[in-house]
Structures are given as C-alpha cells and as structure tokens.
C-alpha cells in the first residue's frame, strides 16, 4: 500500500492510469462540495497535460455517477414543483420514477452531463474488471469498503492504476492511492512508523 498526499505530489505521472473516485467526479461534473479541495480538480486538469496519463472508468462507476447526478437534479426539480404545494403530491422517489425520468428536464440534464464527460473522452478509457468471480467480487480486501469502492479497487489492481479519492475508507489496500484527506494520509504514515518497544 502506498498513499500519497496530493498537497505534496500535485502532478500526475506520465504513462499512468488514474481512477477518480465517484465523490471526486461529482464536483468535476457540477455538484460541488466545500469539503472537497480544489486540489482534486487541479490534479484532474493536469492529467490532460501529462503525456500518456489516462483516466479509467468502468461501467458500474459511470452508472453510479449518472444516477447520483440525475437524482440530485430530480430533487431540485421536485422542490421547484412541489415543495410549496400542500395536499396530494408524490414523494420524491415516486416523482423521480413516474415524472422526472420522462421529462424534458431529465433529457436536458442527461445531455449536459454526457457532454461534459465527452469533453474528457480524449483521456478516458472505458474498461472493466476482467478477472471476475463471485469470490473476488465479494471478498473485500479492506472491510471498510463498500461494494462499489471494492470494485474500483479491483479495477485499479488489475490495470495497475492509482485511485484518487477523498474517502477515508481507502486504506490498507494493495494499490496506490492519492488523497488530500489528511486523516487517510495519516492512517498510512502512522502504519509505517517504526514501532517503539
């Protein structure tokens, strides 16, 4: 395991594959979080100016990113349409399935998101985990990972890629991880400190 601090190593390496965690993709595609550092966006931008650097995305992650963004925009649309109404109205989940997915707003948002992703397609490679078995898919290397995180780990391991994440759960893994999350970085540095008897 090797976790590096993006504050110190702020440039991607040549001929290296990177996997950006979905929580990094969300601010890149428009849902910003004040908790996330601009360093991730800067690092992402530098990939496009680094020879041979690429970004890997697997279908399951693409699905996760699209669903989270579209659900967010659906909540916004629900608010605008129903928040101030009283009486009989659908709940937010019902609205998403029964109204929003067939709306012009859904189609517009989908087109905007895909247009954004397409602008990065020169440096994106869609790929997947090839060596799949029920055991590899469900035996988590770190117990703190959820299924999708574990899937990104498998993808990184198979393609020798570096995971860029702010998620503190990506520790004790046999792949390289880059982060601005100092708690995650400290977990790593603490783990390699010589133990005093």
């Amino acid at each position, binding site marked *: 395991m090797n976790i590096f601090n993006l504050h110190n190593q702020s440039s991607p390496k040549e001929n290296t594959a990177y996997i950006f965690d979905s929580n990094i993709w969300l601010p890149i595609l428009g849902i910003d979080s004040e908790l996330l550092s601009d360093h991730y966006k800067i690092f*992402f*931008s530098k990939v496009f100016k680094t020879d041979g650097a690429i970004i890997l995305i697997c279908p399951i992650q693409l699905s996760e990113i699209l669903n989270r963004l579209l659900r967010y925009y659906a909540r916004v649309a629900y608010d605008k349409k129903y928040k101030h109404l009283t009486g009989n109205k659908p709940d937010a989940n019902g609205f998403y399935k029964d109204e929003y997915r067939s709306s012009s707003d859904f189609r*517009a948002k989908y087109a*905007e998101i895909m247009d954004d992703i397409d602008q990065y397609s020169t440096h994106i490679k869609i790929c997947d985990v090839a060596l799949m078995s029920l055991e590899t898919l469900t035996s988590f290397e770190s117990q703190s990972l959820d299924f999708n995180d574990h899937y990104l780990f498998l993808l990184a391991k198979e393609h020798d890629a570096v995971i860029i994440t702010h998620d503190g759960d990506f520790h004790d893994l046999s792949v390289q991880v880059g982060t601005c999350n100092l708690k995650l970085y400290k977990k790593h540095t603490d783990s390699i400190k010589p133990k005093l008897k």
Partner: protein
Amino acid sequence: MKISVYDILGSQNASLHDDGLALYCVVKENFEMHTNEEVNIDFSQIKRCSTLFLNASFGKLLADFGEEVVKKYIHPASYEQILNFMGKYNDMWDNFANKTNYQAYRDEAFA
C-alpha cells in the same frame, strides 16, 4: 469591455478547471480596475464548454462579487454555437444561489 475566452485559453475547448481559473483571474483583475463597467465575456471561437470550467470561472466570480453585481455587469456573450451552454450556465447559477437550500441533496449525492 470585452474579454475573449479564446485569447486567454488559445484553444476552442473551455473544459478544464485551470482554464476556468485563468478566465476568472483576468475578469476579476479587469473588473476591479474598471469598477461598474460592463464586462462581456466573449465565447466566439469556443466550441465546447464544461460545467467544471463554468464553476471555476463564473462560479468564483459569483462567490467574490455576489449575484447582483455579476448579473448587472458580467455577462457571457457569443456562446450560441456551444452545445448546452445556457443549461449548464443556469445550473451553475442555480446551484450557487441555492447553496443552502440544496445542501441536503448534495449530502445525499455524496453519501
């Protein structure tokens, strides 16, 4: 005052965060030197524009100067050839203006 995005980026693609920051710095500097002068940000020759770019440029201008000032003085222009430009621009603005109202939805998306 007219500021050309193409002249700043030297590219037809306004896609990356640092491109947005480059525009933000030029506009901020010029606007602060010539307060209350209208700034038209000219997108002619630009073919593609991303949400990331808009957040790094207009999003930061909104954070610095506020909605009223940006609405009154700082305007995008000649963007008609860019697919989805106005949709992305309006989303950027809406997300900024409703930052507090949408916090719970952002938290849900990041959960």
